[in-house]
């Protein structure tokens, strides 16, 4: 992708109209501050808006320049060049030099600190979240094409879930400001904290995208969780209508947890790398910081009735029915017997397990056999996004599986 196109792209994402259309007029007062990362086209646009607003409102622009810092909800853009913390963070993450410090400073401002979408990281985080989940899901689906959906959700959560992102923020050495404000060092993560004593799990998630959400007794099928729930299998909040947006003052009193703010920051960094340095840099950043983390996928399974699932699987795939056979045993009449049981389908061994009773060994063997099925990984895996590289080889279809066992 050429850089010019990127700039055009970025203007649509960074522009306040892209996702938060109706909120622009509320924040004209703030938009007089110079935009941190805006293309020339956008600046012209915003200047026109400023002209309109200066006609309507009586605030002269010269007053705004001289505003003391502590009136602003987040640090001014000029402060980014003077912050040692910010420059150190930029260098510590080996961010590309095309990503300016001002954008990194903007990525550190949570929407709860500055509700103006021109200065907070909401739009960057939205883009970064989409990129992160896209890259992770394509990696998981291509590497392990047979994973059950619940395990995919768990693996997604382990790679790019909010808890992991908060851990990453800590491991990157990002410090948090106690309270957001204009005088705060722009190298600190700024967000409005939740009031102490608030019970976060007090009320269940309401107003989700799922229809008939209020009926608690209705069964939530796995397939419906793909459609209605988010990428981690949790209920996702429905977007609020722009007309029903709360006023900026009311919104700022409602804080976020440190985990949520950290997750938003990491997503915003990902989005800003994509905007400023392009897709290859974003992909490299993802591989170096996210995919390089260690996750043992075989630990994410929790079977309730493995033997039954395995017999259903063999029936579906037209294998011979599985038979549990004792491979070796010791001390059957003692206090600590050990049985090694293998599960055979015809002549082939599907899995084996050891246990202190025949039932335990058989159950563990069935778990091992099922994991052997689900954790199949093809050779020479390629992900769809690798086709966007220049001079990529012709695409070969990846292995697509029938799906998990349904009992």
């Amino acid at each position: 992708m050429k850089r010019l196109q990127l700039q055009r792209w970025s203007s649509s994402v960074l522009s306040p109209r892209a996702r938060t259309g109706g909120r622009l007029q509320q924040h004209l007062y703030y938009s007089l501050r110079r935009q941190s990362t805006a293309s020339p086209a956008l600046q012209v646009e915003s200047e026109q808006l400023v002209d309109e607003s200066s006609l309507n409102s009586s605030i002269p622009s010269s007053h705004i320049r001289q505003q003391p810092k502590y009136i602003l909800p987040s640090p001014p853009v000029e402060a980014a060049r003077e912050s040692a913390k910010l420059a150190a963070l930029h260098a510590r993450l080996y961010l590309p030099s095309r990503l300016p410090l001002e954008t990194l400073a903007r990525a550190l401002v949570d929407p709860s600190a500055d509700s103006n979408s021109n200065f907070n990281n909401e739009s960057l985080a939205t883009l970064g979240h989409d990129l992160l989940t896209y890259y992770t899901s394509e990696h998981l689906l291509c590497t392990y094409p047979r994973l059950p959906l619940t395990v995919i959700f768990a693996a997604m959560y382990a790679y790019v879930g909010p808890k992991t992102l908060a851990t990453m923020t800590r491991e990157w050495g990002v410090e948090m400001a106690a309270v957001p404000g204009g005088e705060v060092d722009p190298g600190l993560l700024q967000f409005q904290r939740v009031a102490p004593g608030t019970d976060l799990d007090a009320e269940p998630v309401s107003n989700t995208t799922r229809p008939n959400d209020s009926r608690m007794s209705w069964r939530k099928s796995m397939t419906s969780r793909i459609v209605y729930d988010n990428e981690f299998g949790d209920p996702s909040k429905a977007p609020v209508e722009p007309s029903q947006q709360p006023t900026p003052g009311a919104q700022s009193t409602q804080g976020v947890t440190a985990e949520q703010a950290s997750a938003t920051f990491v997503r915003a960094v990902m989005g800003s790398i994509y905007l400023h340095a392009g897709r290859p840099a974003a992909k490299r950043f993802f591989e170096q910081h996210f995919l390089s983390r260690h996750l043992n996928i075989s630990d994410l399974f929790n079977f309730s009735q493995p033997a039954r699932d395995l017999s259903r699987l063999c029936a579906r795939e037209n294998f011979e029915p599985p038979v549990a056979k004792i491979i070796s045993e010791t001390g059957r009449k003692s206090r600590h017997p050990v049985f090694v049981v293998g599960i055979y389908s015809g002549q082939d061994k599907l899995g084996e397990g050891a246990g202190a009773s025949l039932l335990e060994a058989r159950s563990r063997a069935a778990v091992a056999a099922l994991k052997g099925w689900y954790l199949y990984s093809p050779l020479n895996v390629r992900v769809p996004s690798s086709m966007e590289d220049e001079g990529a080889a012709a695409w070969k279809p990846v292995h697509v599986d029938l799906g998990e066992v349904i009992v």
Partner: protein
Amino acid sequence: MATSLVVPKRPFLALPFLLPSCDSVAMELRRHQSSYRRTKQRLRVRPDASFGVSSTQFQDHIVHNPPSSAPSVFHTPVKFLPPDDARRSLHTDPLFKHTNSEVLPTVFKTSTEKKYHLNKSDIEEIRKLRLSDPMTWSRWKLAKRFECSPMFIAMVCEASPQKKEIQKQVLEAVQSRWGPKRRMAREDRQLRKESWGRDE
């Protein structure tokens, strides 16, 4: 020579792994040597036969020495590989088939072969019997009569609510006589059972 020794603490001459260089005379002469050297000598185990020069193969070959550990779940069994996978052809070597599964004993005495011999009228009768006299016709008795598994009986019919209530009271009466130790042991057993599925 070994018999002439005056009650050795360990019959180390009988150990099979001693190298031929340590013959019995040398042993006897060096009885007072430092223990470090003696232990080092004993650790000098003769290598496994598979590592030596094979009598059948004279050119370079691969020594196949399977690890003494449980197989990893990331090694997909050959049966589970899709037909177009390249690894399928690699595992067709008969050398890899160590155990003959036919000779191994099964875990359960009874065969788990399904017979599918019950028809609709039989199932109707099962339901009728269980509803009419639940105390006599329990699941196991029905299973024995119709030569199927108790699981199958549970699949085709359900106990009447009265019977369920009685059974619940019986269970409560039994459990009320449990002391804390027995109760805790039962709970632990249940927890252990759940951990099997997580492979812990």
